[in-house]
């Protein structure tokens, strides 16, 4: 069974990637549809910002699932799709940030920088965004090879930024904590499945001369 799936994943790569693009763009289409049709009320600014953020987070969780799933079901071909999915995390994070800057702050750059400095939950989000940006730029194949071990180190930052994003989420809520905690439980589960990889990543900063 897994062999057949593997084969399909490998041989229809371009078609499946096309389909994946369409699927990952669905939240954006839904967002536009909801705003245009007034499903989110008379002033959907907050809804747009939160929806885009949640889309980024949901896709991040999906991306984090790929490695354990591919290991458990012996589907190495699945990993070929991880970069594409990861890039959409960045796309939605960028849209989330753009929505905040443009429709909430009305492109008031002074206020934007001021808020970035003064609000802990905003700079947590900003740190996560900058790391995501670096990961996205270095996802180019050529850079990937050039950076080698450094590339692995950089992309291992997906673990801490996932946690940062959850704190950013929790601190941004006016009341309640249930939703970020639900995400935290899922993320903790996913992290525990790759304890070894995380340990190895943390270790890579200690003895920088060590190569495997």
């Amino acid at each position, binding site marked *: 069974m897994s062999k057949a799936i593997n084969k399909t994943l490998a041989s229809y790569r371009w078609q499946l990637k096309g389909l994946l693009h369409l699927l990952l763009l669905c939240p954006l289409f839904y967002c536009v549809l909801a705003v245009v049709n007034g499903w989110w009320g008379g002033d959907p600014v907050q809804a747009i*910002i939160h929806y885009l953020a949640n889309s980024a987070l949901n896709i991040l969780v999906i991306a984090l699932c790929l490695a354990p799933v591919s290991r458990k079901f012996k589907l190495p071909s699945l990993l070929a799709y991880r970069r594409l999915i990861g890039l959409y995390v960045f796309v939605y994070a960028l849209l989330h940030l753009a929505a905040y800057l443009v*429709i909430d702050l009305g492109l008031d750059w002074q206020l934007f920088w001021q808020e970035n400095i003064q609000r802990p939950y905003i700079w947590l989000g900003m740190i996560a965004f900058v790391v995501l940006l670096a990961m996205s730029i270095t996802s180019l194949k050529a850079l990937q090879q050039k950076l080698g071990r450094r590339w692995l180190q950089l992309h291992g930052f997906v673990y801490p930024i996932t946690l940062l994003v959850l704190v950013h989420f929790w601190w941004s809520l006016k009341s309640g904590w249930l939703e970020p905690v639900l995400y935290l439980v899922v993320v903790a589960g996913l992290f525990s499945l790759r304890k070894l990889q995380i340990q190895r990543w943390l270790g890579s900063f200690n003895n920088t001369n060590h190569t495997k």
Partner: protein
Amino acid sequence: MWLKFKRDWEEPESAVTPEALFKQRRNIIKGFGVAGAASLLPATGHAASWFGGDDEEPAAIVRRALNKTDIPPLHNDALTPEAKAISHNNFYEFGTAKDDPVKNSRQFNPNPWSFTIDGLVEKPLTLDLDDVMAKMALEQRIYRLRCVEAWSMVIPWVGFSLSDLLKQVKPLSSARYVAFETLYDPEQMPGQKSRFVGGGINYPYVEGLRLDEAMNPLSFMAVGMYGKTLPAQNGAPLRLVLPWKYGFKSIKSIVRIRFTDVEPPTTWNILSPHEYGFYANVNPKVDHPRWSQASERRIDDAGLLGRKRIDTEMFNGYGEQVAHLYKNMDLTRYF
């Protein structure tokens, strides 16, 4: 000759949904197990909801027209379009997302309604709202509404002075504060039934004012907006409107008003005292810990991208009327 003028808000008789069809539709919607399960999830910003329910249903409340005297506004602001003011609401009893109240309050029935005024008063009263509305001379007042989340609207309210109402019970000289309470009815208010929907707040929602604030001529009891009775999501049938304070002070769907000699607890202050004070006066110089209060996004008839931020004014521009209430007070401490 008998002429009937059709007002612009009137729907033709032919547009009325037959009751049978309306009920049938409700049952179909209830039948969607998935939608039911999804509604258990917290509604903040449609989080976790790539599957939102977006059914349009007629509201349970029929809003009726009100006769009122127009009071000239204190500022020259353009009104927020009614469609926006009744579809963008903070009313956690009906859910935490801005569009939850309009969706989740369709079954809310505020008729009949009575409320109590008691505590340190000579004549405690339980009043029938219809009687009160018939007896009070209704006024229309156009007020700015500034939300603590840094957005604002300009709304024509219909109602009467809070002080005119409070004078009827003859407060005792020992009374120093007035406490307000929202209806507690989990059957009608899903946010009170489930912590997931209601944002984990302990209900009923409570608010309070110092007596002199309550007696200020600006303090207003609204029973309507845009010339009609209030819709459920805006606090039907009776709510407070305090234009110089952040919106959360203007408590909705009031069932009880109580005179006390100690500062009454207030819901958001209990929930997060370093973010929401008892006074909650609009003050551009005192930031909320998570965002600046120096400017605000005015919700007007401009589209999403055409909107500009405007500077927030001290006491929301009502300083002339209320600043004397806070003389000699450190407003960074008593925020």
